[in-house]
């Protein structure tokens, strides 16, 4: 695994017993000693610490940055107030999703956090369209997630953002921290950008709190699936539009037809047509009957007719039953629709279900 990148927390992850795997070019812990199931439940009950330093951190400088970024996403960036963060999507000319990202307004700069697997392409995309793109090097990104996340963070630093999707720059004993109150689990929590040379001390301080345990990528995936959140490259990609992906909520009012700055992003015509006419397929939750998980790639049927495909599936540690999501024909998307999945050559029943599977626990 010598050609894989290592995060500033690599040594700590290994010391903590992390089982390392290659992920998007990085050597990351997929699980620690307790295993995916216990890590998952611990995060929902208390607080999990995730090394997410593999994700791309990018700063956008200059007066025109918000306007330039707005031209790449169907989201209101100009109206994003200092101290706030918003979910956004890079679209292509067909309305497909190149990546999903978080955009934060730090007053004198915007910060963008993108998926590790797409970071190189995203940075090239940003540099083609925006001046003043600075790729952040020498910083780790640490996520704290769970109902005790605030108590854990408060044991290490004094100031932090108060509400979901607030952000703050905080001077601390661990250097200059860039903190957002957000995450990828459906729980309250934070993502903290910390100088690389202080990251291990900071993580050790957080882990010293009795409620805080390290969590690997395995549980990160089952947590986000319970929360109904998409993984780019799996549930959304360059061939799925935000409307098909049931991410219409992420399209800002100002950028939708009738809004103050409607359109003006790649693929706007396709997306606007789907908003008006409805998409042919939709991303939905799927609840398999029985205990067998139904994972990505499993084909769905309604009677003899193809109905769609599963894009993510796992066994839900909280619900103690399998959960999946995927795309189905729009006519079959209403919750409770009975379908069949072809699993190991046999048809197995499942139903469409409302997302998320586990209600969000954000601090509003």
């Amino acid at each position, binding site marked *: 695994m010598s050609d894989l990148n290592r995060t500033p927390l690599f040594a700590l992850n290994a010391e903590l017993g992390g089982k390392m795997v290659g992920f998007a070019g990085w050597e990351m812990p997929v699980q620690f000693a307790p*295993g*995916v*199931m*216990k890590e998952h439940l611990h995060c929902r009950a208390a607080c999990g610490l995730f090394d997410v330093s593999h994700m791309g951190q990018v700063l956008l400088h200059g007066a025109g940055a918000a306007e330039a970024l707005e031209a790449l996403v169907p989201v209101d960036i100009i109206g994003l107030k200092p101290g706030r963060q918003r979910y956004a999507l890079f679209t292509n000319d067909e309305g497909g999703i190149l990546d999903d990202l978080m955009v934060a307004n730090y007053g004198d700069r915007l910060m963008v956090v993108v998926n590790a697997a797409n970071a190189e392409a995203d940075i090239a995309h940003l540099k083609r369209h925006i001046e003043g793109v600075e790729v952040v090097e020498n910083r780790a990104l640490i996520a704290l997630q769970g109902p005790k996340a605030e108590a854990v963070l408060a044991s290490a630093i004094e100031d932090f953002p108060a509400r979901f999707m607030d952000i703050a720059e905080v001077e601390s004993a661990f250097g200059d921290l860039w903190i957002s109150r957000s995450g990828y689990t459906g729980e309250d929590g934070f993502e903290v950008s910390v100088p690389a040379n202080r990251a291990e001390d900071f993580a050790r301080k957080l882990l010293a709190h009795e409620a805080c345990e390290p969590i690997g990528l395995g549980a990160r995936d*089952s947590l986000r699936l319970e929360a109904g959140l998409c993984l780019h490259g799996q549930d959304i990609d360059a061939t799925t539009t935000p409307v098909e992906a049931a991410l219409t909520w992420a399209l800002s009012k100002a950028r939708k037809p009738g809004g103050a700055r409607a359109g003006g992003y790649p693929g706007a015509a396709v997306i606007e047509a789907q908003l008006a006419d409805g998409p042919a397929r939709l991303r939905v939750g799927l609840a398999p009957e029985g*205990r*067998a*998980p139904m994972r990505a790639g499993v084909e769905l049927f309604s009677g003899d007719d193809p109905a769609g495909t599963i894009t993510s599936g796992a*066994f839900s*540690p909280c619900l103690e039953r399998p959960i999946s999501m995927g795309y189905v024909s729009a006519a079959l998307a209403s919750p409770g629709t009975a379908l069949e999945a072809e699993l190991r050559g046999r048809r197995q029943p499942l139903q469409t279900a409302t997302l998320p599977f586990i209600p969000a626990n954000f601090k509003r």
Partner: protein
Amino acid sequence: MKFTEDHEWLRPEDDLLVVGITEHASSQLGDVVFVELPEPETQVAKGDEIVVIESVKAASDIAAPVEGEIVAVNEKLMENPAMVNEDPLGEAWFFKIKPTDMSEYEAYMDEDAYQDLVG
């Protein structure tokens, strides 16, 4: 007791073999959440994939280690798949098979050879 390269253990019980997976396999799989077992009284060939184990990570198969007839399956595993992690060498046996030719059993590794394999 003997072991296969696919991390199954085989324990003779009268003229039957009891089959399960090793601790090494169980820890590699992670938390087991679902087990699908073969029908009793079915005839299987060596190498037939007759058990599906789903863990939190992925699905894997267990192959029949010998030709023979499935005599019994451990239905407790369907109710409580976590037994595969808790007691892989004991309570969490998968099936009992009556080999057509018991000498197929003798060809498998002993414990020392298996421990060398998994290091």
